[in-house]
């Protein structure tokens, strides 16, 4: 178990190293922070001075090394625009994004499991065929289009739900700016969560259906039936528990993807989260914030995947025995 952990951490560090390198490499392509920092009237000499001050004239490798050194101490640099540490800016926006991702994940779990199981058990019913067809359509429609259609139907035409923003939020424990605590905040969450879940939902329905169909063909399912186990128990305890393994593996990776996809959803819904800030940073040429965002999201990816590995071990007894020895 110890060797396994060390290997995992070493891998994670390597991944973070590469992420920071890529983030740094593209920051030159995005724009010149000095142009946005200073006014039009500032002379070329002044600009050079600011550039020198910020260390932007140093070679790429020197800048990168400096960034890495500071990053080790938790300092991802100053946002040029906000004039505050980039970590602060990101962490302040993190609750909005995480709440969105968590709500979407709940929608995905609550819908895909029953639908996937149903489609596996009754593959020939018209409802399964319809759901499978709809899932292909669902996976093909981009998130921003889904979002706009949702806004049009439920906000513009029906006036049921608000179309943008987080609504009324409440500070929890002094650090977490939550929209889950107020009725207004919850209402604002509904449409963005549905829009964000729309990309993952078809994938998981199809995954669960495919895995479930395979498991239902196995000997141990037939054996469970031959033992006279109640049909619901055969389905949930015997079959579904076995489909969980691949679902968790894919789920972990997709959770990270979902965080990345919030950029689109947050933009359409003017959701004040990390993705929204990221897009602003791109527009303003706020390159240090941009790199900080990439590193932060990369770290979230790595942490989530490690947690998934551990959960995987909890569900699969064979992984547990392997790590024990």
């Amino acid at each position, binding site marked *: 178990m110890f060797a396994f952990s060390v290997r995992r951490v070493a891998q994670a560090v390597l991944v973070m190293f590469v992420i920071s390198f890529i983030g740094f490499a593209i920051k030159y392509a995005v724009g010149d922070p000095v142009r946005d920092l200073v006014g039009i009237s500032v002379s070329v000499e002044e600009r050079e001075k600011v550039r020198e001050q910020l260390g932007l004239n140093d070679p790429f490798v020197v800048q990168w090394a400096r960034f890495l050194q500071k990053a080790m101490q938790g300092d991802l640099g100053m946002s040029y625009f906000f004039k505050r540490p980039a970590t602060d800016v990101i962490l302040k926006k993190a609750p909005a994004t995480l709440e969105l991702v968590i709500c979407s994940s709940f929608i995905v779990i609550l819908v895909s499991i029953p639908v996937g199981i149903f489609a596996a058990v009754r593959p020939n019913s018209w409802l399964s065929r319809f759901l499978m067809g709809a899932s292909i359509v669902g996976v093909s429609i981009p998130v921003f289009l889904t979002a706009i259609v949702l806004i049009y139907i439920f906000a513009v035409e029906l006036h049921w739900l608000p179309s943008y923003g987080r609504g009324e939020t409440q500070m929890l424990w002094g650090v977490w700016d939550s929209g889950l605590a107020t009725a207004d905040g919850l209402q604002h969450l509904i449409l963005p969560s549905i829009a964000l879940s729309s990309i993952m939902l078809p994938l998981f329905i199809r995954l669960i259906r495919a895995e479930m169909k395979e498991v239902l063909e196995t*000997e141990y399912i037939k054996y469970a039936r031959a*033992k*006279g186990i109640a049909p619901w128990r055969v389905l949930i*305890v015997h079959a579904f*528990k076995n489909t969980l393994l691949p679902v968790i593996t894919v789920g972990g990776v997709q959770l990270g993807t979902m965080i990345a996809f919030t950029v689109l959803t947050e933009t359409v819904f003017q959701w004040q989260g990390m993705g929204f800030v990221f897009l602003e940073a791109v527009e303003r040429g706020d390159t240090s914030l941009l790199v900080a965002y990439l590193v932060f999201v990369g770290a979230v990816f790595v942490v989530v995947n490690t947690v998934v590995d551990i959960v995987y071990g909890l569900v699969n007894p064979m992984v547990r025995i392997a790590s024990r020895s």
Partner: protein
Amino acid sequence: MKTLLEVDNLTVRFSLRAGEITAVDQVDFKLQEGERFGLVGESGAGKSVTGFALINLISKPGYIAGGSVRFQGNELTALTDEQIRRVRGNDICMIFQDPMMTLNPVLTIGTQMVETLQAHRSISTKEAKRAAVETLRKVQIPSPERRLRQYPHELSGGMRQRVVIAVALITSPSLIIADEPTTALDVTIQAEIMALLLSLCKDENMGLILITHDLAVVSQVTQRIAVMYAGRIVEVGATDDIVKHPRHPYTIGLLSALPQNKPRGQRLDQIRGVMPTLLDIPPGCPFNERCDRAQEICRRQRPGLEWKQHGGRVACHFVE
């Protein structure tokens, strides 16, 4: 002795894209209480399908097309899903071929035993666990308390098959259907498991239907056997009698193919040709294309499974 099981004209069909096939064709046999009965035949002869049909566990595209299965006087084919569920694993238990595949990999041995008992009795988990430990002891598994917490992959193949036997025993059934219970095991373990199964059946006076292609095993364990060919029973009778004096040409062919019936160094006999696929069973006797005694009548008329002079039933025109 009372009749335990009475199978009459049981027919199982599968609707496949290539056509309708009859996997089990008008099979009938009887079983007394505590009797051990063998179903013998090549792969694809319909032995396993017959076994599953007895507890109405044929999955689509298969279905029971006709006939009846009477168990302790009740017609099993007419039961509702819930009624037949109460019979499965309770009065009639099954032992599958490969213990590596039959136990659920993500559930502990304890869970898989307790759930079986709780599916048929209202009993607390604590009591069910006690019963499980007792049953594991009966099948000679060492330190049964610890086994309950273990997963199937932590046990060897022979141990797992003992667990499967224990799961079958836990509800004290009156009939066990064992589908090739030793085929997937090491040769050294096979004899142990078979001996265990035999002694348990004797002790508890349980009926046994042993499905196998192993004639040696069947002759040691069973009192009567039925030989199946292409979905039909071609010969039924006392095991000793059939092994010593087979009447049907197919049974004769099977037995003369056994190595122990030939002097050392001599070439083994074999039945020429292969069993027809169920999609194109020849008209008349299904064995006629491979039979040395086949005449015109064998290609025209299907022989019925009839009582013959020696006191057994044989489906052949030429057995008197």
